[in-house]
């Protein structure tokens, strides 16, 4: 049913594959001060591969959400392979972005953020980032970005040609005891999947430091039945 050969860049098959490449990019280059978003798909094609699966070739641009529309767009190319296996397995991504290391360094902010929260007395704990109106304090913004990067590990792993994930919100962040000089954070995130329109809840444990970047140590899918209780009249 899916098309092979050149793909329309604005249509969903190319977009979904590009989002997968974005998740991959964020797992490698995301930080409390950097999250990449898809700006545009320029060219895309897909073909079935011998081992069973579909490989997408993509030419696209990304921007750093932190810089907003003022920021420069980075040109990227990626191969995204969706395996065709009995049980779902994660897509495989090969990615190259131009000038990745030329974008404005956030080392200073990262160090300041790290120093502030690596202290043994630090016990950050917060819920609903953002709140229902989209508000988020400035202090919480790096934590939101960290959650978004950590969630990218899950979104990447869970992606298929039939999904398109975004992070809807951070339900909670709870700082854990630092380990091996890494900030340890437990997040509960809500992911939104476009095709099914479902909201999926995951709990995860992530570590971060300026040197090692974001790593995800544990993930746990959480059942979500918030509507089991009747709302007040």
């Amino acid at each position: 049913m899916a098309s092979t050969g050149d793909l329309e860049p604005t249509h969903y098959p190319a977009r979904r594959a590009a989002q997968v490449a974005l998740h991959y990019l964020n797992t490698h280059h995301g930080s409390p001060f950097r999250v990449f978003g898809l700006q545009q798909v320029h060219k895309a094609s897909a073909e079935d591969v011998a081992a069973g699966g579909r490989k997408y070739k993509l030419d696209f641009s990304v921007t750093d959400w932190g810089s907003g529309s003022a920021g420069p767009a980075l040109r990227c190319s990626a191969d995204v392979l969706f395996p065709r296996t009995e049980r779902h397995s994660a897509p495989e991504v090969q990615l190259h972005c131009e000038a990745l290391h030329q974008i404005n360094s956030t080392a200073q902010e990262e160090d300041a953020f790290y120093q502030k929260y690596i202290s043994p007395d630090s016990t950050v704990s917060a819920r609903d980032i953002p709140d229902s109106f989209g508000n988020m304090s400035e202090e919480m913004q790096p934590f939101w970005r960290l959650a978004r990067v950590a969630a990218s590990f899950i979104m990447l792993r869970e992606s298929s040609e039939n999904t398109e994930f975004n992070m809807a919100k951070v339900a909670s962040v709870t700082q854990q005891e630092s380990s091996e000089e890494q900030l340890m954070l437990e997040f509960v995130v809500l992911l939104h999947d476009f095709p099914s329109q479902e909201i999926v809840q995951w709990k995860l444990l992530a570590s971060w430091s300026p040197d090692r970047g974001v790593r995800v140590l544990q993930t746990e899918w959480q059942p979500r039945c918030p509507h089991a209780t009747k709302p007040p009249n």
Partner: protein
Amino acid sequence: TMKGSIMGVLLVLALVVQDRLAGGLELKSYDYTKYHTMDEISAWMNQMEMENPDVVSSMIYGQTYEKRNIALLKIGLNSTTPKKAIWMDCGIHAREWIAPAFCQYFVKEILGSYKTDSEVNTLLKNLDFYITPVLNMDGYNYSWIDSTTRLWRKSRTPGTGNCTCVVVGISRNCCSEIYNGPSALSEPEAKAVTDFLGMHQNQLLCYLTIHSYGQLILVPYGHPNISAPNYDELMEVGLAAAKAIKAVHGKSYRVGSSPDVLYANSGSSRDFARLIGIPYSFTFELRDEGQHGFILPEDQIQPTCEEAYKGAMSIINYVHDKNFKSAAITVTATLWTTLTALWISRTNVI
């Protein structure tokens, strides 16, 4: 005690005046850059009707599951002849708060400009606008309860039988976000719309349904194998609207049918509208593209509404001109013929 009574009366009067003033002031400074509760929106609808009695009337056309009256604002200049109309609904999906915000903004814009802007005046003269600011009132109200209900999507009709979670690779027993109901049009809200569209189908030129998120303009149909007969024209009109949107704040909106751009979603009211013969049907998915998703920050309400307004007006003006410009040409031609005939007859009088 006489003095006391007078003081009492004066106090009551003062309170009444203050209450009226406060009510008036509060209503007059309605903030279109903030999200509003269902009660606030209902009160605002009443205010729009009260303040603009010559162009605004309200109509109740159904009831929600929780027995709320589903109401629309009918906006247009009075006419002795039946008028063609534009339909716009917002808030079918509870969590898409920017959509009702846009409907309110749209109403404010046309009411604020029809007296001075000749283009808007012509639109209100020739067309009626049927605008439903919040279609899924129960769901919208529910999404305001607290942060755990913020991402609710559907109506409050309870699911029947076994609910299953539609989650990638996993199934559990809990209710799906997009449970579709036991049969087509089983939700009272959906039925209210389709009944209204059906009753007014000869009047309705254009059907617009407003959602978020994704920055998309979708054309019928939702099924991959069916195209609307005027698909090429719809795409052209949609692309022009996207261009108008981009000119405002630089945001790109993709244009296409759901199966192409998004995902197959049969049974949508937009497809129903096209199926029953409303020629121009579009779904708007407003900001953003996933960074904030459904929880669009309030500081983006104004720019989102500004660009969406231009997009909607691009479509509405096209539809209007298609139906009325040729009529204008006919009128003009008739006028010239009459004038010429008069002149000839005059000059021939000796």
